[in-house]
Structures are given as C-alpha cells and as structure tokens.
C-alpha cells in the first residue's frame, strides 16, 4: 500500500537523519545558531542546527541543540572529539557535551510504521483502577523528584562556578603583579643586584 511504503521510507529517512545528528548539551543561552555552526563546522559540514526549546524545566538550565551533520562518520567524529577534549563554546571554561542523537529528541519524528495505539477507559469498577491511580501518582512523584534533583544540580553548578571565578581572579591578580614587576624594571634591576638571570621569553 502506498501509504505504508511512504511511511516506511519516511521512517527510514528519519532514522538516517538521526544517525547523522549530534545532540549537544550544556550550551550557554547566548550560543546562537551561527556559533554552533562554525564550531562544529570544524569537524565537517553542518547541515542544520536546531535548538531544543525548554518548555517545562526551570529557567536557568543549560540549553541543548541538535546539529545535523553531513554523514554519520562526521557525527561520530564530533562526538568522539568533544568527549575526549573539553570543547568550549561561547565562553570558558564550561565544556559542552555531545551525544549521538536519538529519535525522541527530534520534534518531527514520523510515525513508526505499523504501530497502532489502543487506549481504553478504566473506571472505578475496573479492577485495574487502583493500580492505575497508583501509577498516576507515581508519575507525578517522579516528576517532582526530577525537578528536585535538577535544582540541586543547578545549585552545585552555581557553587562551582563561583569557586572557579574566585580562583581565577586571584590567579589573575597574581600574574598581573608579576607582569607589572617585570615590565617596570624592578625585576631586572633586582636581578642585576643579586646577579641572577631574569626569566625571559
């Protein structure tokens, strides 16, 4: 039947696209499509960049995107490279993460051919009602757990960021002091006095 064959080909096409796509996480909200494109363009040809919008979570979790490359080999290379070395985009030092994309990450996933979904109403008289209600409650509980965990992790990230910021500033101050001392002649002068060599380039 025509529709089934097109459904299958659609699905095959879609699967193929999935293979070529990389899922990137931990993106800063300032990252734009062109940034992603140039960044991953180093690994190959980027065909398409699509950000996954965040409709449900808290506002300040990192962004993620789906980047479609030209061939699965390039996608694999991207993932390999990014997992081996910290790849930074639009800011340092937090690295991004990359995974192979999966079907459910796409928003235009075609229907898997041959699948039929049934549903039925289960009301109080049905023996399964209790269990079903329990499951429903469980689902809600899980959602709450997820949110909680997420918030915890965000708090940890914030802590780390602050800590790194302080360290960085301290280091920078130290280095700039060294800079100044060397540049304004104090260090060479002292070096002459003590008969030592200045650490030069």
């Amino acid at each position, binding site marked *: 039947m025509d529709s089934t064959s097109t459904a299958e080909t659609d699905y095959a096409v879609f699967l193929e696209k999935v293979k070529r796509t990389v899922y990137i996480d931990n993106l800063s909200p300032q990252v734009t499509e062109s940034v992603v494109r140039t960044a991953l363009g180093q690994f190959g040809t980027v065909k398409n960049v699509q950000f996954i919008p965040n409709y449900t979570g*808290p506002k*300040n979790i990192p962004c993620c995107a789906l980047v479609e490359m030209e061939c699965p080999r390039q996608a694999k290379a991207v993932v390999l490279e990014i997992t081996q*070395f910290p790849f*930074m985009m639009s800011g340092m030092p937090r690295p991004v993460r990359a995974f192979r994309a999966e079907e459910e990450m796409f928003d235009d996933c075609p229907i898997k051919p041959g699948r039929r979904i049934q549903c039925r109403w289960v009301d109080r008289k049905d023996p*399964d009602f209790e269990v079903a209600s329990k499951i429903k409650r469980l689902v809600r509980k*899980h959602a709450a757990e*997820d949110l909680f965990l997420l918030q915890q992790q965000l708090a940890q990230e914030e802590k780390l960021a602050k800590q790194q910021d302080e360290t960085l500033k301290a280091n920078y101050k130290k280095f700039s002091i060294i800079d100044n001392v060397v540049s304004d002649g104090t260090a060479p002068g002292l070096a002459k006095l003590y008969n030592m060599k200045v650490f030069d*380039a």
Partner: protein
Amino acid sequence: MVEAEKVDSIEFKWGKKRGVGGKKKDIQFYESFFYDGVDYTLYDSVYMYKEGETEPYIGKLIKIWENADKTKKVKVLWFFRPREISNYLGDEKTHRNELFLASGEGVGNANVNPLEAIAGKCNVVCSSKDSRNPQPSDEELQEADFVFYRAFDVGNCRILDKIDEKIAGIEAKFLLNRVGNQNSSGAPKLDSNKKEVSGNAVATDDTRILAKKESYLGDKAASSSGVQFDEVAKTNERQVLVEEKLKAAKAYGDLDDRSCKKAKLDNLTKASYDNKVKSMQKLRHDSLGNSKAVAQITPASEDKLRPDLTKDPHETNNALSEKPKPDEKLANGKFPEASLRQPSEEGSETNYYKIQEPIQRPETDRSKWFRGLPWEERMQTAHEQGTLVLLENLDPSYTSAEVEDIIWQAFKKSCTAKMIQRTARSSPHYGQAFVIFQKREVAEMAVAKLDEVCLMLSNGRPLVGSIASACFPGKQSTFFGHLTINKLRIHMQREMVKIILALTTLAHTTGNVLVYKLCCVPPPSFFPLIAVIERCSYAQREAVSTSHCSQPNTLEYDMAMEWCLLQERSDLALRKLRQQQGQELRKLRVTLKSK
C-alpha cells in the same frame, strides 16, 4: 662560480649564482648547490630532519643564500602532512602520500634554516588540475615520493583547493610542477580561460557524495557539483578536461574517482548524450565494489551531464521529493524540514504539520490556505486561554501525531499535540506532550476526566493530564560556568607568560583588552602552541565566540575538568534516580491485571 668547501666530511659546492642582496650587498643568492652527494636546485623539495623527530619535514627550497660570515642558509616553504593538520581536515580522507602546501599569511608558512639541515632530496609532484600546473604523467605520479594538490592556509587554518598566485613571495608557477622536468604525456595544455574547476574539487565533491547515504541529500550535492559541471558538460573539450581530471584523480586510488572516471570514460567513447546516460545506467549495475557508491554517483553524474533533462533518471532515487503536493509548501516556522508526508485531513490548525493518514479522523474544516503559526506562538496563546494541557506518562517513542490520535480516540475531540523533545536529562521511562485543545472547557473537561477515570494506553500506562503551566524560554541571563575577567583575559601558561612579557612593552595600560586566537602548529616551532595576540577593544567577544577544544596545558583545561567532574557526578545521580524510578514503575505495572 665554484666555491668548494669541505664541511666536516660532507662535500659541498655552490652552483649557479643568482644575485646579491642584503643591506651591505654582501649576501650571495644561489640557484643551485651540491651537498652531500646530491644536487639541489631552487624550488626543489627536500627533507629536513629535526633532532628528535622520527619523520622528516618536507619543504620546498625557495631561497638559497650565503651570508657575509659564510653561513649558508635556505628558506623553506613547508608542506604539511595530513596528520599535522588532522584537526582541520576533519573527516576527509587523504591519500597515503599526500601533502598540503603551506600558504597564506602567518607563522608556519616558511622558515629560514641552515643549509646543513637538509637531509635529502624529495620527489614531490603536484597533481593539481590547475591550469598553471604542467600535468604529471601516470608514471611520475607513481614514482613520486609525495603528491600534493591542495594547500593549507596557515592564517585561516583552512584547506584550500586551489594554489594561490603567490605564496611567501614566490609565484605559483615555481611552486607547481616545473615545466620541462617532465614529459608532457600528451596531456594537452588546458585553456586558462576556462573556469577553474580543479580536479581536486571534483574529488572532494565526489567523496562527499559518496559519504552520503541518503539519495535526496546526494541530490543536493549533485546539484551543487552539477552546477560546477554544467559548463563542463557542454563542450567536447571540456569532456577532455573532465577526463584528465579523473585520470589524475585516479592516481589516488579512490574508489569514487575510479567509478566516476569509468563512467565518464565510457561516455567519451560514445557520441551522444543519450548513449552516455545509458552507459551510466549500465554502470549502475556493475558495481565496482561499492554499489552504493555507484548508485550515488550515477544520479550525480547524470545530473552533471544532463542538467536540463526531465527528472526521469532521478525517479528512482528522488521519488520521495517528487511526492509532496503543492500544499506541502505550507511548512514554516518551527517545521522547516522537507517533510514528505501528506497533509492531514483533520483540524484546521494542523496544516503546518504534516502527518501520515493511517487513522480515520473526521474531516473537519480543513482550510488549506491557513498557514499554521509556529508552535511556540500557539502554545503561548493556548496557555493564556487555558487550553494548554500537559500530558505525561506517554511512551517516549510516541510521536505528536499519535498523541493526537489518542486524544481523538479517548475524547472524540480534535486537538494539536506536540511531543516534548527528549533531552539528556529527560526520563527514559515516559514521554510528555503538550496538547492544545480548541476550547478551554474541553481542556478542563479532559483533564478532569483523566483525573477521575484512568485512560489506559496500550502498554499499561495511564495517562496523566494537567493544565499546563508552561515555562517559556525567555532570555536566560544566568548560566553557570562561563567566567570572564573584567579587564584582561589571558590564559596563563608558561609560554603565554613569556609572550605576554614580551608584549607588555607594546601594551599600554591595563585598560586594553588582549585576546588571542589559536592557529595551527607550524612544524619547526618550539612552542606546542603559538598564540597570536591581537589587541582590540571588542575582540574579547571574538575570542569567546571562537569555539575550541581546550589544550591540556591551559588553566581553562583544569577548570573544564572540574566541570566535567561535576557533570559526571550529576549524571551518576540522575542515573541512579532513573533506575529507582524504573523499578518503582515496573513493580506497579506488574500488578496490573490486564495489559
């Protein structure tokens, strides 16, 4: 003319003089010399050994001279080996003995070295199809130690398919194959006023075509190379051009080139275009070991040779793209993909969103001219109107269309749904979807009913619905992990400090912003990383936007590692949570009496 010297026990003799130069006119330039048993001439390719390196560097002598103090120097323009620029090659395959000529402006292009560093002569043949390049014969290509046809720009860190006119002050004709050094092998001189499509461009395009598995994507490449080959296909002369390109490209032993060449050669034996097409189709059947490749090449080649033909040859490969009906073009906004589905027959708002039609749904007002708004806008309006519902506990592999069907089956109401895309954080146990109902009452009724009575889906999942309090992505300002220094942004490592100290004489006050860009690794350098420090007041943004892999010897690498550690911890926690959740779900599901 002759200055014989014995340098240690290595014999050396100057050859032909070229001229004098230098400030005091005391530098003598030469065109040739005899060193350690080998005659060297200007523009020869040589091996240069560096102490401690296992493999020698390869370069072209572009200047030879002797200073007033009798030191002999050569200036060498480098060739890069593929592994040296593997970062910029990305995925492209290179031939075993392929080299890249250094070009462009910047460090790493060429260096002055003592003449004694030369370790031997090297046979590097330029196989570029450039019109300026005398084409090498097949034997020459086989005998050559190395070949090159591409260049690497050290300034932009990019592979160039075409050799520049002038590199390091030397004109291209000296860098390409020398005229007279080879027998022309009957290859006719190519016209210089033909547009310059170098054979390497063909090769790269072909490799790209091969690499794609999907035919309609191959079509895109075909059309782009089709554009290039458009003019090629037009005249016989050009066919000769193509043949030669392929002949030389064949030397690389690439499968795709061979198949392409065979295709083209076959064509050239026959007179008309029609015959060519037939031979193409014939080739389609005899696979050269990679039938996919041939199949991919043939539509591409067909495209090349017959750009103005009807789509008949493409029918098999491009059946998909032929199908969409005219109102498919309503795709916009969030759904720009070339969707090959047929328009839905349901609901006025689903025209932007094409789905298959396996399930019967009533034909309500189908307004074909109605262009659906992008999903986000609709969600927002729905949210305000109170018609937005969040469904949870769906199977994660459901699609939006299936969700709509479910709603239809359950409530006999039409709606638009969108599955929430899964991210790395989302639970693999269930999926979620947003559903926009037509009216607020309908939405509330649905939610109420879902609460009271369970709607069981096929695999034991009761649907959970709630009026959605969607959170719309606004302008996020808080992102943890990107640090900035207000004034100065420097990466501290030993070499960096050295360079900065050297440059502090240039920098004035600390109000200036110093940034850096990483460029490629030049062979005989001493620093593993050379940074070109530019000074610019807005350049900090540029540096930040230059995405890069951090090197292990920087401070940022250490910080990045800390982030990775944190990430791992979070992942672990998340995994454990998911495991636990999965267990709980399973336990309950098992107790379901009917599935």
